[in-house]
């Protein structure tokens, strides 16, 4: 990472790799898959020359295991994949979640289920990012809509992972990841970097899963001389398996609390001309780009349209969506799926009189500004 600002013309996937390196990522494990392979290839070249570690594993299950192990040994670790690989990672994502291991998983979404449309964009993995691994667990899920987002949100993803001791999922899509755009990379001292808190107490006092007010216990790394037990079984504050209902409940509640208590810090979104808007489009990922264009054209036509662009999908920015709903007459939610975020929106605003209109494409094609504009005009 350079100290000075840099203007570049690069692809989304390259910006993700550069963002990860800027955030201090020093470990990558992955398995190649379109449209995420460029991230894996760049990391294989860049990490060794920075003293970091790259390993190509035998599959995505192994990749997720390796980045979790590396993080436990003190590394800042990353993997990158697309739908089929993301499915394989789910069990170990749950493990990292309940053992509270910071790491970042990039899923460059393709179209469709199963092998689907490997070279088309899609947004079908939103709910899988939230609920893909079994059991109740909190999740942080971010979504990129530009090359510049790819860089800055990757850094945010690492910061959230470290600050809240949790896996963070960054959703990109084929369009964002393969688009080349101008990007101004900030200088090194302009970037905020967070690192996990380490224990400072004597060994005998260390409680690895302590139920603190903040909810995020200090994390010792292997070799640090704090010897403790880590298990995916539901555990007590010392890390040992427990079935005691009181301890189980306290543990699950803390897992959720550590995210929900800090949700304002995690929820990233941007408002474009929503202040006086009658019609607000709520969008994320590459669709947010089309939406921005659409509301600009609508404004020129004299229609009061605005955009709420979501960069954090989970924890879902409920109050901001409620805020939009209280201002507008209609909300339009365009998505390249059958309506995964629109369901969250409807849940959030169930007591608002506002009308919610879905706009969905499931054919592997982008939603164009024109299509969104048509919906805006219809509403008017």
């Amino acid at each position, binding site marked *: 990472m350079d100290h000075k600002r840099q203007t570049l013309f690069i692809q989304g996937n390259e910006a993700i790799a550069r963002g990860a390196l800027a955030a201090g990522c020093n*470990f990558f*494990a992955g398995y190649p898959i379109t449209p995420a392979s460029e991230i894996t290839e760049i990391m294989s*070249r860049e990490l*060794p*020359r920075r*003293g970091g*570690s790259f*390993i190509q*594993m*035998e*599959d995505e*299950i*192994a*990749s*997720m*295991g*390796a*980045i*979790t*192990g*590396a*993080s*436990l*040994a*003190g*590394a800042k*670790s990353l993997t990158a994949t697309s739908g089929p690989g993301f499915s394989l990672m789910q*069990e*170990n994502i749950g*493990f990292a979640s309940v053992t509270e291991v910071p790491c970042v998983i990039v899923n460059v979404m393709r179209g469709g289920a199963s092998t689907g449309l490997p070279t088309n964009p899609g947004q079908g993995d939103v709910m899988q990012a939230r609920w893909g691994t079994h059991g109740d667990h909190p999740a942080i899920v971010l979504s990129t809509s530009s090359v510049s987002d790819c860089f800055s949100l990757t850094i945010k993803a690492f910061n959230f992972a470290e600050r809240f001791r949790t896996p963070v999922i960054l959703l990109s899509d084929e369009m964002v990841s393969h688009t080349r755009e101008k990007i101004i990379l900030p200088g090194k001292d302009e970037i905020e970097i967070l690192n996990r808190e380490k224990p400072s107490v004597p060994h005998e006092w260390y409680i690895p899963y302590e139920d603190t007010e903040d909810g995020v216990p200090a994390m010792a*790394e*292997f*070799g*640090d*001389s704090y*010897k*403790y*037990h*880590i*298990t*995916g*079984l539901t555990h007590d504050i*010392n890390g*040992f*398996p427990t079935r005691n209902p009181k301890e189980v409940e306290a543990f699950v509640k803390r897992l959720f609390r550590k995210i929900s208590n800090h949700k304002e810090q995690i929820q990233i979104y941007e408002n474009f001309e929503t202040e006086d808007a009658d019609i607000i489009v709520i969008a994320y990922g590459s669709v947010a780009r089309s939406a921005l264009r659409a509301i600009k054209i609508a404004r020129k036509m004299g229609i009061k349209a605005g955009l709420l662009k979501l960069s954090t999908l989970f924890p879902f920015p409920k109050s901001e969506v409620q805020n939009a709903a209280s201002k507008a007459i209609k909300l339009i939610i365009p998505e390249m799926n059958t309506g995964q975020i629109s369901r969250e929106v409807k849940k959030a605003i169930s007591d608002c009189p506002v009308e919610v209109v879905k706009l969905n494409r499931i054919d592997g094609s982008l939603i164009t500004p024109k299509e969104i504009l048509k919906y805006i005009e219809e509403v008017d």
Partner: protein
Amino acid sequence: MPYTELIHKYLRHNKKFPHVWCPGCGNGIVLGALIRAFDKMNFDMEKVVLVSGIGCSSRLPVYVDCNTLHTTHGRALTFATGIKFAKPELNVIVIMGDGDATAIGGNHLIHAARRNIDLTAIIINNNIYGMTGGQYSPTTPFGAKAATSAYGNIEHPFNISELVAVAGATYVGRSTAFHAKLIDKLIIQAVEKPGFGVVEVITHCHTQYGRRNNTPTAVEMMKLQQEKAVLIEKAKKMSPDELKGKFTIGTLVDRNLPNYCSEYSRIRRVALTKTDK
């Protein structure tokens, strides 16, 4: 060191006993061998990481006073790979059952061996899925009865030591629970050997395997281990006929191959000299 002192020194004081295993289970014998090996190697336990998957055997690390990680079923080697590669100064030892290592985790096992990352894998082979109630595993003998092969197993078993040897392991040793002292020796050899080392321990699950196959007690099953195991040095002088129904124990493979972490250090130096972009 007397056993009581070993136990106080290497096992956790804050972990509630009794352990989870059935009385007579071979897993405890492996735990004993492991702490004797630690003591002989005079290890700094702060630098030891014990990693396991899921199964009766994978409950072993929780009792040991070091860094312990109980992962997902079959995936222990993937976590261990990340730990070792991120911090090569750690001694990483992986404990797995036969189902854990060769069914759900079989792919990771052959790739860890092929990649030759400096780990020691102790595979506790009881020829059955113990924890889930005695279903057949990839090492259940042909014809044997299990909870899912009431009419006799029609699949053919893996020979784990041969499997990892052809996959590229630099060290392979095999013992039985009966030959407890040999386990100590093999663990020390495997740990001290750079690269991927495997110690297979043939053991008994009298509860789930023995009772379905006419050997319902640990003692009967250990007697069979005694009868069937032949030291490799002795086996070399025996005819194929004499070896029928027997298996070899001792140091089976011991060879030198470049290992992943030291090769990667070389890659870091090479990468520094390349200045594209």
